């Protein structure tokens, strides 16, 4: 066990798992609040094109590490994609969903084509699609630290304003809040979160890490602040448990983390349903018990 704790690879994996598990649900809370839970999925598709473009640029520049520009490429493409999607949404363009579909599938197809054109293997592609946390370097760790801190500082620091805008945009506009700028903040935060989480769960599963902790948290909380806080705890628990299990079993970490989240959601949802059912039965029994003496008295 001590060997595992002192192993630099394990240390890097755990640091990244904690940071991503902590920050992804913060942004996920705003996306669920705005009923745009699938936005992360779409931006993830666009981010893959950025990864590939960075890869191709690295290949052309003759860099020693071909994928050195993959993360910067993903950040640029994801942010650009998020801004375009936000513009479409805020202007209420009728064909916005079709344009978004073109953007998403164009992104993933371009990504696959460019990675193969740059000489990338299927293994490289799979790493970006489904995550490859065991290959993170210390440089990757520092990038993740920077991105996660930015997400946490902005996402939590502006929580009240972002809540107001995502809860009721029309009211927020009437208060003078800079609604357009705050909407853009949510979109850019989503893009940055996807890039930061990409190494852990991959672009295809990143939305699961943003949304599942919020969905689980919602089952047991009533306030927005507590939902976000509990989702952060659940996110860390999902990531650390998932990565921890893969230290002992040869499983794909990204997929395992998301499956753990789905299992946890099912268990909590069933338990919450059971508790509500029992409470209703108890209340019903109490009402019947109170009513009985009167009935008996009347009968007598």
């Amino acid at each position, binding site marked *: 066990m001590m060997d595992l704790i002192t192993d630099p690879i394990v240390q890097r994996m755990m640091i990244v798992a904690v940071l991503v598990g902590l920050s992804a649900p913060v942004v996920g809370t705003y996306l669920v609040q705005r009923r745009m839970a699938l936005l992360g999925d779409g931006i993830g598709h666009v981010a893959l094109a950025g990864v590939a473009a960075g890869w191709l640029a690295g290949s052309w520049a003759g860099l020693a590490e071909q994928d050195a520009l993959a993360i910067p490429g993903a950040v640029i493409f994801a942010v650009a994609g998020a801004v375009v999607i936000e513009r479409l949404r805020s202007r209420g363009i009728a064909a916005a969903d079709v344009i978004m579909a073109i953007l998403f599938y164009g992104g993933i197809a371009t990504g696959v084509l460019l990675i193969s054109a740059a000489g990338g293997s299927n293994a490289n592609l799979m790493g970006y699609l489904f995550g490859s946390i065991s290959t993170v370097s210390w440089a990757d760790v520092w990038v993740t630290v920077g991105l996660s801190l930015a997400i946490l500082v902005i996402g939590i620091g502006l929580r009240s*304003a972002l*809540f107001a805008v995502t809860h009721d945009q029309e*009211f927020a506009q009437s208060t003078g809040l800079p609604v357009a700028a705050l909407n853009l903040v949510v979109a850019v935060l989503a893009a940055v979160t996807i890039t930061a989480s990409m190494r852990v769960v991959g672009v295809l599963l990143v939305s699961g890490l943003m949304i599942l902790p919020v969905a689980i948290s919602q089952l047991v909380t009533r306030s927005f602040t507590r*939902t976000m806080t509990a989702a952060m705890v659940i996110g860390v628990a999902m990531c650390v448990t998932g990565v921890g299990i893969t230290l002992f079993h040869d499983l794909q970490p990204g997929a395992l983390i998301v499956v753990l989240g789905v299992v946890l959601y099912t268990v909590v949802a069933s338990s919450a349903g059971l508790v509500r059912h029992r409470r209703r039965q108890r209340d019903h029994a109490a009402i019947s018990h109170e009513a009985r003496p009167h009935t008996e008295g009347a009968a007598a």
Partner: protein
Amino acid sequence: MAAPEPDVLLDGSHDAPPAVTARGVRVRLGGHEVLHGVDLDAFPGEAVAIMGGNGSGKSTLVRAVVGALPASGGSIEIFGARRARSVASRIGYVPQRASAGGGVTATAREVVQSGLLGASQLRLPRDSKERAMRALDELGVADLARRDVASLSGGQQQRVLIARALVREPDLLILDEPMAGVDVPSQEALATALTARRDAGASIIVVLHELGLLGPLVHHAVVLDQGCVTHIGEPPRALGLHALPGHDHEHPHADAAEPDGSTFAWEVRP
């Protein structure tokens, strides 16, 4: 609870500057003009009802006033300023309830606290909880502060949204159909709270389908029909009319029948 006269001088003018002066307001939605040059005045201590049938442009007008929709023509001045955002801290807005709500649960107190934010206030003030509780208490729903707003009844939700506007201690209160789908006790609570605010000097603009319990609060009405003003002045009920053109439904329960068997609901005076 009859409406007291606002600060009106003998010649009919007001001694206080207007809260809202809108002239020839035009608004386009989806390529079509839905407001065709509408005028609106509201003064401090005065309640104005905007009335009319479905699709007459009532909500569009108040959304343009608060800056949620851009006007394609005309002018809107709020406390003398051309941009609603520069005086937003003095405005309390209650949108139609259908527009409120998100995918994550939020307590009534959190929703009311969000009313304390503004152009230069991106974070909640330290006393936001106490102020939110006072506003909820004013509407008689302080006991619901920790409840998820989505689980509340229509009337309770409406009270929470009005508390969110009142917590701003606004000089101009704009409400879009606050009585729609609201039970009678909630309507009474809203009428009491709004009357107190009007008497304290706030200007109130309220979109209504019918005057109902807010009738005694209202000084004058602006009636819209297909984006045009068809009447400005006494509220329809005060004129002995149940409704003016644009009012698209009848209320057999509301008006006593005339001796000849007719009701005011069908009488329209020029």
